[in-house]
């Protein structure tokens, strides 16, 4: 019985109902947005901006984050979680340098390494030198205790020396690229890592991290690594999350419909002019939405046919729309009609 109750009727305009359901909730969000107080390093974009971000299928979210949980045995052990955190968090040469002097004309730079920062990230001068020399074969390296001297073998112009030195200081010595910060948090006695910045493929390669325990809010990252099905689920989850933060909810079927619509073509498509709405079959429906002239001119140019199957185009020409009560039709051929005799 309850299953029957949840069933929708044939011809029900589910898309319109979905749009209205989400639209109603999001007008509420504009009026009253929650601001979470807390750690400023861990900004999570929420509310309407995040919803727009998801629906527009932005390539990079404004605040990408990852959450890495662990299996029972590891999760309760703070030290091992912290060890993994160190492997994930991106460390650049610059962050281990206390101070530096550079002489661009001579092509030399002296890096005074910060011992405390080095020990915290378990780095040695030797390791850093190896990384730099592997990436930059043009430079000569020598060290004197904590001091690393960098010198160009060949003479170069000031501009390229400068960019090279900036690149050296920006070189990653450990961690995963894109994970700007990682923090160990706990829930109960289970520890987990949350990050700002996201790099799914990079994190999955780290030892001690299991695939099923990694979560990111970067839909495109998920799409690139795990494929379109995973991206669909991510859109679904992220949308529900937006409403959950606002302490409201929409029916999951609405979110599912949107996730399906966005991913049914095999890629993640945005909702709007450049995505779903721009891909509509009908010329009139597209022209009625945005960029009217462009669509008419192209339709004339390529001799497009409008089969008048959607809602918008039928309203324009004044036909009954094929939705709801207009979905069903009783049909009989003219010649069959002749056979029918009125009952006397």
């Amino acid at each position: 019985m309850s299953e029957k109750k949840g069933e929708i009727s044939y011809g029900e305009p589910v898309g319109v109902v979905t749009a209205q359901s989400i639209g109603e909730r999001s007008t509420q969000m504009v009026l009253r947005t929650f601001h979470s107080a807390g750690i400023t390093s861990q900004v999570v974009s929420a509310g309407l901006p995040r919803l727009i971000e998801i629906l527009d299928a932005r390539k990079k979210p404004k605040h990408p984050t990852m959450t890495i949980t662990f299996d029972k045995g590891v999760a309760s052990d703070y030290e091992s979680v912290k060890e993994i955190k160190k492997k994930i968090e991106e460390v650049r040469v610059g962050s281990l340098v206390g101070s530096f002097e550079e002489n661009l004309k001579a092509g030399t730079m002296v890096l005074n390494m910060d011992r405390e920062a080095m020990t915290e990230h378990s780095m040695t001068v030797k390791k850093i030198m190896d990384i730099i020399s592997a990436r930059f074969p043009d430079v000569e390296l020598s060290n004197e205790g904590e001091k690393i001297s960098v010198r160009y073998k060949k003479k170069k112009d000031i501009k390229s020396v400068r960019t090279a030195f900036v690149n050296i200081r920006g070189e990653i010595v450990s961690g995963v690229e894109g994970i700007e910060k990682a923090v160990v948090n706990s829930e109960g006695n289970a520890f987990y890592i949350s990050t700002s910045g996201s790099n799914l493929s990079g994190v999955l390669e780290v030892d001690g991290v299991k695939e099923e325990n990694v979560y990111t809010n970067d839909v495109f990252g998920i799409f690139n690594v795990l494929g379109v099905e995973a991206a669909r689920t991510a859109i679904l989850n992220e949308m529900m999350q937006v409403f959950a933060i606002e302490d409201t909810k929409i029916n999951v079927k609405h979110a599912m419909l949107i996730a399906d619509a966005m991913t049914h073509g095999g890629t993640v498509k945005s909702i709007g002019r450049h995505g779903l709405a721009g891909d509509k079959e009908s010329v009139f429906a597209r022209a009625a939405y945005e960029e009217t002239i462009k669509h008419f001119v192209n339709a004339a140019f390529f001799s497009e046919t409008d089969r008048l199957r959607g809602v918008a185009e039928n309203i324009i020409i004044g036909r009954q729309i094929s939705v709801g009560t207009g979905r069903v039709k009783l049909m009989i051929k003219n010649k069959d009609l002749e056979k029918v005799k009125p009952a006397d």
Partner: protein
Amino acid sequence: MAKDTNTCAVFLDGKHIADVKDGTAFAEEIRKNRRKGLISGEVNVAYIKKLGEVHINADKGRVRKPYVVVENGKSKLDQELMERISKKEIDFNYLVRRGVIEYLDVEEEENILAAMYESEITPKTTHMEVHPAIMFGLTVNSGVFPEFNSVGKHPLAWQLMKQAQGLPSMNFQNRFSARSYLLHYPQRPLIDSETYRAANLSMHANGQNFIVAVSTYLGYNMSDAVVVNKAALERGLGRSTFFKTYSDEERRYPGGQQDRFVVPTPTVEGYEGEQAYTKLGDDGIVEEEMEVNEGDVIIGKISPPRFLEEQTAFGAGIDRSRDNSTKLKAGESGVVDNVMVTETSGATKIVKVVVRSNMVPELGDKVGSRHAQKGVIGAIVPQEDMPFTKDGIVPDLLLSPMGLPNRMTFGHILEMLGAKAAVVKGEIQDGTPFARRGNALIEEYGNILEKAGFDRNGNDYLYDGKTGKKFAASIFMGPVYYYRLYQMTKLKLQVRSRGPVQILTRQPTEGKPRSGGIRLEEMARDALVGHGASLVLKDRMLEQSDKDNVWICRECGDMGYFDHIKNMPVCQMCGPGSKLESVEISYAFKVLLDELKSMHMLTKIRLKND
């Protein structure tokens, strides 16, 4: 900068002009001379201690406020001056000229120590407030007890005052205002303020004293609605007249032609039949005191033809003029009040016709008090069904109690109490802002009411008009000065079943003056789509809008037309013998296809085989 040195910079209107040693003494010197009349009273000077600067301001656009000057702990406005004022020997400007009262701007106000009342003056005091109510302007001060209302209510209160119908001018019979409203029986309020009396506003009273009971009435006064006594309306409560002026001009056209005010003859183009012009006099203008209704011609006018060829083809003798008369707009009616014929500076004749209509308060008309308590009439109840007191007093208006607590318009309640005391005592009471304290007022009014045998809190026991039973609770009742606001149902009511359409799209017109329909807008359309109500949607978008039948050629898919001479549809592309079908579409869509065609985009309509 000047702080470090011992000099003090002097700025005149923001420009550095000099340095002085002692800024305070310098400013004081200017003030002394200003009070003597040696320097203009428009000049203000301020010594700014924090910056060590003297600012002299004499430019325009500064907000200034009058203060009484206090010198040596004594107000300069002494007993002698007060007596001379009451004898009307001297006026306010005399005091300003004599340096008794001076106007200060915001900067100079920083240098003073002002006392509110004379009793509060100390040796250090330099100024005294003229009156505490001076913090309000003329509009708020002309109301009563504004100090008991929420600050946010004051702008709303004078907003209502602007909209009140009253007695705007004494020569209303000779005026030709585009629109004006006249309250038939304006009353002066039972409570007024000093400002109200000083400005002589009762000469242009804009309201009436309604007997108000704070009570519900079967839900007809919920959500800011009010219930009104029908008998009170029939006695003339809130009754008003609405004047509207129609005007027209005999325009001159190039070629020596001009309009003429006449009764149009049947030869005129667009003649509407003899019936339409019966109300016009011989001069083509309606007679005074003639009853007119919507669509009636009130100024008959003929204009020369729009296009010149018509003129030349028949010669000048034949009259091919068109009817260009002024008619009463849809939904309007009344009696012609006044007619004026005059000339413009360009020596063309102009006619103005004033139509007056009687506006009896009806459902949906707006009323409001002086405390931003506005509402619409939700029910007009016969007097016998209204609640009444043991003395037989029946309220004119029932106000819902739910409108009072969260709006915090305590002034409204206090006005009811005070006005009730005014009625009982037979004296108009004073409600000047800050004149007396609230509990003193309640005490005073309570005593007056108690002496006359009323409850001291202004409550009365009412009896239900329908059953005659006494209500269990006592009900707060008293007179309130109410405005009848100019938002009236009669001027706004608009309905349409059939009517004019736009020329281009053949869709119904929009807006009241064109007797248009109400648009089914985008989100309402989405709601219909969401319900799957496809036939309702089609009805709105097609049947009730711009339905049209076009002939579509089965072969080429282009639009054809119906040839009424041959009595058959024709396709211009395929020639005779082609098969066409009549198809029902929106006319706006046909226009779209035509416009595309005009841009070399041919749309072909392929019809389904049946």
